[in-house]
């Protein structure tokens, strides 16, 4: 449970993470904005409230792990890692430059805090499952957190991993499906329907919960309460808004990948500043 003060602080941090995302876009002039902004509240809750991590010891043996299966959302990962102190904020300004430590999809060998090289959709859940298994074998209480896209769920390899994770009773694993209901070509249920989504996961042997993926209190509660069912891996279906926080981009398919105009960035900055003022009240 969060005190009102804690909640406020996390909300402010989430805004700061959104600002970091915008800072990266400003540096690179383009990037996967929509899917990054839809997961900001989730990664903020994980990195600032839930996960056992130490930015000074990014490879600490008993740390919790985070796998961004939908690697294209990495602007949010970089943004939260910087905010949590894994590296200096100035690194965010290198996004888009030659050999930057912040590639368009994350590389664990370039940046502390990154746990896996994702980007090709449909890999992360298996990798996370292996981590969860290894941590259990070592008798560590560490948890593994995963974020997947809703469009990503069309990849068959995910369902191999979903089956294996329940078969092997990986109840130290919590997956967030970022149900922003959009993918590149349109509405996810129209491009390739995943419905009935919750029943699919349940039938694969997972404990499930549906939440508002922008409500930090609910995100924290879910993360504190998992496993939702004893001996089962858990999945949170998080209803979110693509590009959350930038009004002109919210819930719009054409902001999957943003080639940002200067005036658009300016407007986004002003909108974030307005949120800032509201939070200060």
């Amino acid at each position, binding site marked *: 449970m969060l005190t009102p003060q804690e909640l406020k602080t996390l909300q402010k941090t989430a805004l700061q993470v959104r600002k970091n995302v915008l800072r990266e876009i400003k540096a690179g002039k383009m990037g996967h904005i929509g899917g990054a902004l839809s997961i900001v509240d989730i990664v903020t809750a994980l990195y600032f409230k839930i996960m056992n991590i130490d930015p000074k010891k990014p490879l600490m043996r008993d740390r919790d792990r985070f796998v961004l299966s939908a690697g294209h959302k990495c602007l949010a990962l970089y943004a939260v890692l910087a905010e949590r102190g894994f590296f200096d904020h100035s690194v965010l300004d290198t996004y888009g430059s030659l050999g930057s430590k912040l590639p368009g999809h994350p590389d664990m060998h370039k940046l502390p805090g990154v*746990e896996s*090289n994702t980007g090709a959709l449909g890999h992360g*859940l298996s*990798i996370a499952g*292996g981590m*969860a298994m*290894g941590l259990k074998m070592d008798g560590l209480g560490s948890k593994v957190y995963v974020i997947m896209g809703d469009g990503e769920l069309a990849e068959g390899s995910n369902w*191999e991993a979903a089956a*294996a994770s329940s078969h092997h009773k990986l109840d130290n694993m919590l997956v967030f499906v970022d149900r922003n209901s959009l993918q590149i070509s349109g509405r996810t249920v129209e491009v390739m329907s995943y419905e009935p989504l919750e029943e699919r996961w349940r039938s694969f042997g997972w404990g499930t919960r549906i939440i508002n993926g922008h409500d930090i209190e609910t995100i924290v509660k879910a993360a504190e309460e998992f496993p939702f069912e004893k001996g089962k891996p858990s999945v949170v279906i998080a209803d979110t808004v693509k590009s959350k926080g930038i009004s002109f981009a919210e819930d719009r398919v054409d902001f999957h990948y943003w080639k940002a105009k200067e005036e658009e960035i300016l407007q986004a900055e002003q909108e974030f500043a307005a949120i800032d003022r509201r939070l200060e009240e």
Partner: protein
Amino acid sequence: MSESKDPRKTFGEALVEVGEKYGTVIAISADSSGGSGMTPFKEKFPDRHLEFGIMEQGVIGFASGLATTGKIPFVVAIAPFVTARPFEMFRNDLGYMRQNVKVVGRCAGISYSDLGPTHQSLDDVALIRTIPGVTVLNPADPVEIKKVVHAAADITGPCYIKIGKEKMPVLFEENYPFELGKGYLVRDGKDVTLIGTGTVFANAHAAAEALKKEGVDVRLIDIHTLKPFDSGIVLKAAKETGTIVTVEEHYLAGGLGSIVCETLAREGVCTKVKMIGIDDQFASNGPYDDLLGLYGLLPDQIKETVKGFL
């Protein structure tokens, strides 16, 4: 004829040995454990044997994740199903992530001769050697199978080990000079160099013996490590013997023959090379030796090819 051994059984023994040596070695099965010789490992280390069922893409990712926690997973299954099928997982989750996972493709080449092209693997070396940082191993006899399994376990990083199905004659002594990344000069010679790898090395070996009896002084090289490749031994052979013949149970495209030609071309060395293997076609089906015969891979055929090439 020397003693012959089942490569999968030999692999299974080697896996138990490395399992004893490293408590972190894990055996991963995709409904493929028994057929891969892993039953003794499973019996000896039941907690370190993980069954996943038929999900060859999934197991590569799980192996990668396990490796991030310090385990040394051995993923073993029918060769095409751990190479061509999950190629992107191999490339990204093991190669790009540089994870310490050992993938073993068994019943490789055309050794599933009767089962046809779906189960044959004539492209595994071509595919996997494009992945930066992956060590590609193809042992030539049972002694060498053990050597490469130990070598793979000893080094940190992704490896692909290719083994066949048919019994393999024991060619090498227990203490022969095996060095990862180096070709093995089995016998010296000055007329022509025969370079073989893996399952059909024994046939190249037999051809070399026969040629010697007929007065051809053959240099014979075993390449157990296809990557990183020992270019030195090939360049030396080109210089000293002039003519090279390669022998492999693989497509000519992308395998040993290709690697040898790439090596010579990169160094600007002009040498006659003959590649024996399977050319651009899906292989046929039938008894193993008949199939080898179809592609010129039997000892007599290799011998005749060499003679005709001189």
